[in-house]
């Protein structure tokens, strides 16, 4: 659906995007993450035909974004960063305006506007001016205009920025829901969102893609350690000294908890069968086991590791 090949874009002397290639299939949700200024928005702006690429090609549904810009634009719904909207327009007027230019046929237009208002839960605000809306509702208007022509491709630049946790969950579910039939690329800073929503994660750093895989795979391939959480009822000091002597335990950390038992995070090599060994260890010492599980992959660490090593590498080169 989306093919990005050797995309390079610079602003004056700064290279914003450097020889980036990736593709997204129909029905795929791709999460775009990276530090500020890594080139996320620039890449999206090239895909949506707002900026031209210096080098490389981008096609959307087979249409080159530079040569057949209008055809490509027809197939994209776009929510730019920080959701620029005409604040002096009414919500419905604005959606009508976009629908008309998006070529939504006159007789289905009102119905379509009603649909997107439903999807984005905009009913309570539909008779207001956009300028009077809160950040969350503006974001929904932005989403509604991106959806109005039922495009096969959605490009969302930080759709959850500035929203409260409830709204974030709502938008996330919405993206998941819509993403069943569409190709979606969205950027975010919130890493847990990527794990919860995406089929694939693209991590971009200094204008280059440093990772391109599903969140789980990414965690497995990047991190050579796993963390297991264990809760034990027993004498604290003895537990700690014995834990130190277990050879598979690379590191452990006592968690602050208000329960009567003590909780630990045990770090071990990722291929090690840590949980059964720990269970054995607890029963051998006649303590009681209250909880034992492998913690979820920590994308934050993956992200830090990938983007840091990249910046270190470029730092060395410089």
């Amino acid at each position: 659906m989306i093919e990005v090949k050797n995309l390079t874009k610079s602003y004056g002397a700064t290279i914003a995007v450097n020889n980036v290639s990736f593709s997204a299939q129909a029905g795929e949700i791709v999460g775009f993450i990276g530090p500020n200024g890594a080139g996320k928005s620039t890449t999206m702006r090239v895909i949506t035909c707002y900026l031209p690429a210096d080098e490389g090609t981008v096609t959307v549904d087979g249409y080159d974004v530079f040569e057949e810009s209008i055809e490509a634009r027809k197939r994209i719904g776009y929510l730019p960063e920080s959701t620029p909207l005409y604040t002096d327009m009414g919500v419905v007027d604005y959606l009508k305006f976009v629908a008309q230019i998006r070529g939504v046929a006159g007789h289905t237009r009102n119905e379509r506007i009603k649909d997107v208002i439903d999807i984005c839960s905009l009913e309570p605000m539909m008779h207001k001016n956009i300028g009077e809306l809160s950040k969350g509702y503006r974001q929904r208007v932005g989403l509604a205009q991106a959806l109005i022509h039922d495009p096969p491709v959605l490009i969302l630049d930080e759709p959850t920025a500035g929203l409260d946790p409830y709204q974030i969950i709502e938008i996330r579910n919405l993206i998941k829901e819509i993403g069943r039939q569409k190709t979606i690329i969205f950027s975010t800073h919130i890493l847990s969102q990527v794990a919860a929503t995406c089929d694939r994660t693209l991590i971009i750093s200094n204008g280059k893609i440093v990772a391109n895989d599903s969140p789980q795979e990414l965690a497995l391939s990047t991190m050579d350690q796993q963390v297991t959480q264990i809760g034990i009822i027993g004498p604290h000091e003895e537990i700690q000294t014995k834990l130190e002597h277990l050879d598979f335990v690379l590191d452990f950390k006592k968690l602050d908890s208000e329960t009567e038992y003590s909780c630990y995070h045990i770090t071990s090599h990722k291929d090690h069968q840590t949980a059964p060994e720990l269970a054995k260890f607890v029963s051998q010492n006649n303590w009681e086991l209250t909880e034992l599980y492998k913690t979820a992959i920590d994308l934050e660490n993956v992200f830090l590791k990938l983007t840091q090593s990249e910046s270190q590498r470029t730092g060395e080169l410089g």
Partner: protein
Amino acid sequence: MNNILALFKKETSSYFNSPIAYFNIIAYLAVSAGLFFWFGFFFERRQAQMTYFFRLMPWIFLFFVPAMTMRLWAEEKKMGTVEMLMTLPIKSHEVIIGKFLSSFLLIAIMVILSFPIPITLSFLGDPDGGQIIASYLGLLLMGGAYLSIGLCASTITSDQIIAFISGILMCFGMLVIGFVPYFRDFGLESHFGSITRGVVDTRDLIYYFSVIGFFLYLSVLSVESKRWR
């Protein structure tokens, strides 16, 4: 066509949703009528003619038209909506034409609302109706030319004040070039002057249409330049 219409509707409603349009129209009427009746020594002249009114117009437009066009593109840039607009499947020239037409409508309303002046004159004396109608037509043409220049000025900046001042400067340049020997026919005022005498020559029409076309073309280029590579 459909796109131009959609944009025309949007721009027109945003003009009238804000106080800018009303304010501009009222100020224009107050200033032009004031200058005409008092500073034009209308009562002392004891002539029921509008010639002096029309002679003021190139100078009044110099300030009022850029005030209306300054926001056309600069505001889109400032608010970031230009990114939304230019990623819609609409061609740059359709955007420019839509915006031009909506501000042209505003100018037309503004100019037509000065109708109490010729009506007053017809009570006081016997003005030349044909000449006045021709002059109003000339006013619209000249207004269109000022508009296209102001719109072009608005595309080069994201700051409305800069758009306003550079609009005035560009219009002023196009106005005073007509006072330079041999360049008389390039000035915005010269052709208007001949229309106000009651003769609408095709050369005058061609002049205004080419100025409008030229500056709209420049505006399209200026807007498109972001997409060049």
